[in-house]
């Protein structure tokens, strides 16, 4: 495959990405494009490197000193992987939703306001407005509007996950990186999140990591199937799921159903 170059319809381009942890080759020559305003699903068995790939996009791999990362990741024309300049601003372009909700140990209100405070916004009215707007966006406003000052941990897990989504949206990202965001949730909360994602793709580009085949079928506009640290197949869900080319995907489809 020839090295990919950034194009207009692709928000994010990954080119020749390799990640090592010691001698262990976690990601092998990853090349992919994330189309804008679509849900791109990273699908694959556990331990295939999906989460690591997601963390590379957000530069959270910096936290793990034992990881060696090489290659390029472009947003527009900027290679974000190899810059050390203004990393917080790069991360702000992407909202992260992790496997388990991680509400900050403060109130519901302050959780959503956190990103704004970090940006240096002090205008109380603007913050109030933004908090309400984003809590509405995730359908949480009516449930929490009377207890905005309650600790975020007092919410149910499903509500916490939506709060974390609202918190991420408040910094106005272009891309949502979601790492198995429903794996810790009950079926009803999962449904709500999935529904939100379908609504949100009008305004955001979404990258969703999952190992649940059904979820991928329900949500994906574009599928990247990974196995053992490499991309095995990528393409439209109808192509991939009805005409799998590789043995790995075929096996996965049979097990998944």
């Amino acid at each position, binding site marked *: 495959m020839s090295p990919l170059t950034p194009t207009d319809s692709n928000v994010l381009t990954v080119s020749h990405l390799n990640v090592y942890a010691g001698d262990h080759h976690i990601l092998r020559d990853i090349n992919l494009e994330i189309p804008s305003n679509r849900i791109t699903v990273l699908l694959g068995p556990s331990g295939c490197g999906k989460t690591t790939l997601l*963390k590379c996009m*957000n530069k*959270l791999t910096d*936290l793990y*000193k*034992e990881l060696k990362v090489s290659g390029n990741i472009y947003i527009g024309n900027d290679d974000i992987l190899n810059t050390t300049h203004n990393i*917080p*601003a790069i*991360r*702000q372009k*992407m*909202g*992260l939703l*992790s*496997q*388990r909700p*991680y509400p*900050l*140990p*403060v109130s519901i209100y302050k959780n959503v306001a*956190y*990103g704004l405070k*970090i*940006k240096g916004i002090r205008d109380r009215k603007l913050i109030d407005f933004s908090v309400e707007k984003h809590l509405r966006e995730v359908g949480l406003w009516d449930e929490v509007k009377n207890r905005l000052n309650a600790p975020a*941990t007092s919410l149910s897990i499903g509500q916490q996950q939506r709060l*974390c989504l609202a*918190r*991420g949206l*408040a*910094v106005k990202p272009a891309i949502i*990186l979601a790492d198995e965001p429903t794996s810790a949730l009950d079926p009803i909360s999962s449904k709500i999140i999935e529904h939100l994602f379908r609504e949100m793709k009008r305004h955001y580009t979404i990258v969703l990591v999952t190992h649940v085949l059904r979820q991928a079928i329900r949500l994906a506009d574009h599928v990247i199937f990974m196995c053992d640290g490499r991309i095995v197949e990528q393409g439209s869900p109808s192509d991939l799921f009805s005409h799998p080319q590789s043995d790995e995907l075929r096996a996965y489809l049979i097990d998944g159903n």
Partner: protein
Amino acid sequence: MLLKRILADKANGLWMITSLVTILALPLVIGTGLYLKASPLFDQQSFFSLVFSADWAPSEGRFGFRPYITGSLYVTLLSFLFTLPVCLLSAIYLTQFSSQWLIRTMHPVIDVLAGLPSVIYGVWGVLIVVPLVAGNIAPAFGTSSAGYSILSGGIVLAIMCIPYILNMLIEVFRTVPAGLIEASLSMGATRWESVKHVVIRGNYPGIISAYGLGIAKAFGETIAVMMVVGNVVKVSGNPFDAAYPLPALIANNYGEMLSIPMYDSALMFAAFLLLIIILIFNMIFRYLIHKTRKQ
């Protein structure tokens, strides 16, 4: 056979509960014992004058504990000031910024150091700190000191308490899930901002408890302080002067305590005071820890 087993069950059950009750009743028994031994003192002097008077003349039956209490407080305060930045910053560095390798080697080392007997720290104090204070630090501040001083006591205590406090802080900070830091970073916060908001602010009770327990330990420490603090009865604000902390008073005078009337009561009163102060400290901060652990 069955009867024998039931009897054994009863007997062993009794042994177990008796042991547990004995241990749990220990502070009460100790407190009562010391109080009873100290009580003759209260016929002569009020509690208030015992604690706040600076008039110390055992042979004339006057016991004012103020020099000892201030001595203890001063040494403890100094050690707290030394440990405060060192422990907090080191714990943050070890848990958030350092390589895995460093914390994996440091954690057992800190654990071992926290278990070293205090007399070893005292030896080190006499060997290094006392000459350092007398020869370098005091002259640098334009005064002179014998070296056996409040400052030396504070330094030795701080070094003793650092492994103890650091250990607790590391335990506290380690419980912060990586996902929380990642969430904060992905909203555009810098590493340090994330540490400030998530690690420090989210763990106030744990941090306060660690220091609270450290202070309590410092306040009751005997041998190491006694070896370097000079043991002179005096109320002084100068850290280069000697002082006489409460535990040192008890430890140094047990020999004479039976030869002077009421002296033994006075020393037991000092022990009683130590017990109450430290027990209260421990109860408060342990309570904070237990409460946060439940959440």
